[in-house]
């Protein structure tokens, strides 16, 4: 019994860790798609953010006599800032192609993914000569777990104690930020003027335009938020996980899984949280049980690793309820002349 609850706690804990980058990317996609811009490029933005975070945190933390900036504990924040800047820049390229030039949003997203996959290795190799990796980050260069107040003292209280100590406490700041942003996104989306307008511009940009509000400005704003959130997601991968540094293609399809979670969640923030937690749990199970013996057959490790991708397909196939996307998604808006 104790064994079971321990396993369950450990799995839930990993699920939260795995879900965080998915959640942030999913919310990033939510802003973009609610404003009527498809974003296949979440993956690429996360990747470039992860690289920028790893590289700049490494530079900042390197002692000055090694050619670094010797910034100590500030390094991790420099990394985070660089991640956000890089991701927003990529987001603006996407915005320029799909809003200003009215180009194909899918193709632009695909291009951004490839560009990120290539440029991160090229520059990484040029800067660090480590085959596209960034140097291993030390304390102060990455986000460390935060122990919440009283975690130690309530640890022995039955049920609540272990849950508080093992599951809720002990994550890094980005994890808590991610869940905070869920609430914030809900509030922005449903309780502010900007949110109302953003939802409208994704459904019927013509109406928004008629009301004298700039479609272009709204969509650019939404994509800036998308960029910031992808930046956080990417920074988490290189600064907030055991990887402690950037490795090539480290996003490993998370941008696409986040998109699937977004569709699964029907473009709603709270539901998006649950959807990404589900994917996080699946990833945790795949990592914990390399192969699973079902009695009559053994599921190989490769199957367990492919599980999130398979679930994505099942979800997209609509076996879990019909998802209706924002109506104007993917269509460039042409002002009437």
């Amino acid at each position, binding site marked *: 019994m104790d064994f079971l609850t321990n396993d369950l706690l450990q799995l839930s804990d990993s699920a939260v860790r795995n879900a965080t980058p998915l959640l942030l990317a999913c919310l990033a996609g939510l802003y973009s798609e609610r404003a009527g811009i498809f974003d*296949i490029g979440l993956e690429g933005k996360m990747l470039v953010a992860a690289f920028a975070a790893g590289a700049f945190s490494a530079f900042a933390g390197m002692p000055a006599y090694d050619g670094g900036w010797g910034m100590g504990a500030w390094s991790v924040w420099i990394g985070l800032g660089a991640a956000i800047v890089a991701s927003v820049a990529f987001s603006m*390229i996407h915005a*320029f*192609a*799909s809003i200003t*030039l*009215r*180009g*194909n*949003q*899918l*193709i*632009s997203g*695909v*291009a*951004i*993914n*490839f*560009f990120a*996959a*290539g*440029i991160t*290795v*090229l*520059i990484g*190799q*040029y800067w660090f000569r480590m085959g*596209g990796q960034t140097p291993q980050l030390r304390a102060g260069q990455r986000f460390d777990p935060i122990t919440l107040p009283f975690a130690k003292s309530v640890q022995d209280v039955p049920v609540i104690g272990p849950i508080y100590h093992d599951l809720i406490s002990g994550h890094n700041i980005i994890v808590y930020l991610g869940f905070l942003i869920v609430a914030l996104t809900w509030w922005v989306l449903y309780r502010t003027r900007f949110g109302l307008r953003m939802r409208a511009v994704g459904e019927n940009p013509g109406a928004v335009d008629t009301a004298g509000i700039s479609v272009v400005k709204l969509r650019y704003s939404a994509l800036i938020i998308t960029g910031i959130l992808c930046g956080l997601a990417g920074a988490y991968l290189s600064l907030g996980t055991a990887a402690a540094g950037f490795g090539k293609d480290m996003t490993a*399809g998370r941008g*696409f899984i986040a*998109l*699937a979670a977004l*569709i699964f969640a029907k473009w709603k923030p709270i539901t998006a949280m649950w959807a990404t937690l589900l994917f996080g749990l699946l990833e945790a199970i795949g990592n914990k049980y390399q192969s699973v013996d079902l009695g009559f057959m053994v599921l*190989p490790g*490769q*199957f367990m*690793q*492919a599980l999130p*991708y*398979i679930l*994505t*397909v099942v979800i*997209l*196939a*609509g076996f879990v309820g019909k998802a209706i996307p924002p109506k104007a998604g993917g269509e460039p808006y042409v002002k009437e002349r």
Partner: protein
Amino acid sequence: MNKNLPKWVDLGLIPLLTLALAFAVSGLVVLSIGQNPIAVVKVMIQGAFNPFGIGHTLYFTTNFIFTGLAVAVAFHAKLFNIGGEGQAGIAGVGVALIMLSFDWPNWTIALLVGTLAAMVFGAAWAAIPAYLQAKRGSHIVITTIMFNLIATAIVGYLLVGPLQAVGSLPESPSFPPAASLPTMHDILGVFGIEFDKNAPVNISFFIALVAALLVWILIWKTRLGYEMRAFGHSERAAVFAGISPMKITMVAMLISGALSGLMAVNTVQGEAERLVIGAVEGAGFIGIAVALMGRSHPVGVVLAAFLFGILTQGGAELQYELGIPPQMITVIQALIIMFTGSMENLVRVPLENIFIRAGKGAAS
């Protein structure tokens, strides 16, 4: 397509200008990693065209013709098939399974059956996303990407499990020697022309050219091709004309998957003669850039595939000569996709303005 522009501008000048833009930005990237763009171009061209390199250039070209045609055919029906990578990977499994199942008496039968197996397996891997798109409205872009990742897992599993040869390497046993396909050296040798004996380019190159011709006939000379283009142009109009979206989506994706699959004949059967990990090497994705640059026309696809063949082989030289990682090609590929596929209006709109102004003066 566009009434404001003469055909030569639409099909010639705009692609060339967008390509020039893509190369210009690639040059900036080269500068940013501390290299000289002119030296890079020199190394690439020498690497791609020297007597050793050309055999590799044409080998890569063959792959890209197949994957480029695959994306192009789907584009005509307004379907974005990003799954070439997975379709070619699974087709490799098909080729390996059939090649290892029989003791082939000679290469002609082996080629025929291998080609069929590659097409069937490639098409089958495209069929599920196609069905889900047509019947359940699942976004084909995301499902095909997922199928790429799932295919990687399957191939990985097979090569360390059921299909693994004796030994520790993740690869299948070698195919029977009699099934070995004629290389360009063998073919040109018949006509007394010298060609590098070790070059990987083989008879599949000619299959690729035939495939391009067949795609041209399909798209512009058959009823099915007409229906695909009509559907791609306007789904609603096509439905009114009695064209079934289900049928077109399925058929276009099956053909697309079969074309991607054919790549395995070149790589798995023609070159490696066994199944190895990562046999596709991103060629499925390069097909997207090839189709966009070639404007989904078989002639354009063949030319664009040759360009990417040069880039790939020349890019491999960059690693040896200048220490630039092969990801340089991924960057160029991304920029070509961006500028020709999504930022085309950057050159199109100014050109249209010029021609409207000029047209007003001349026509009236």
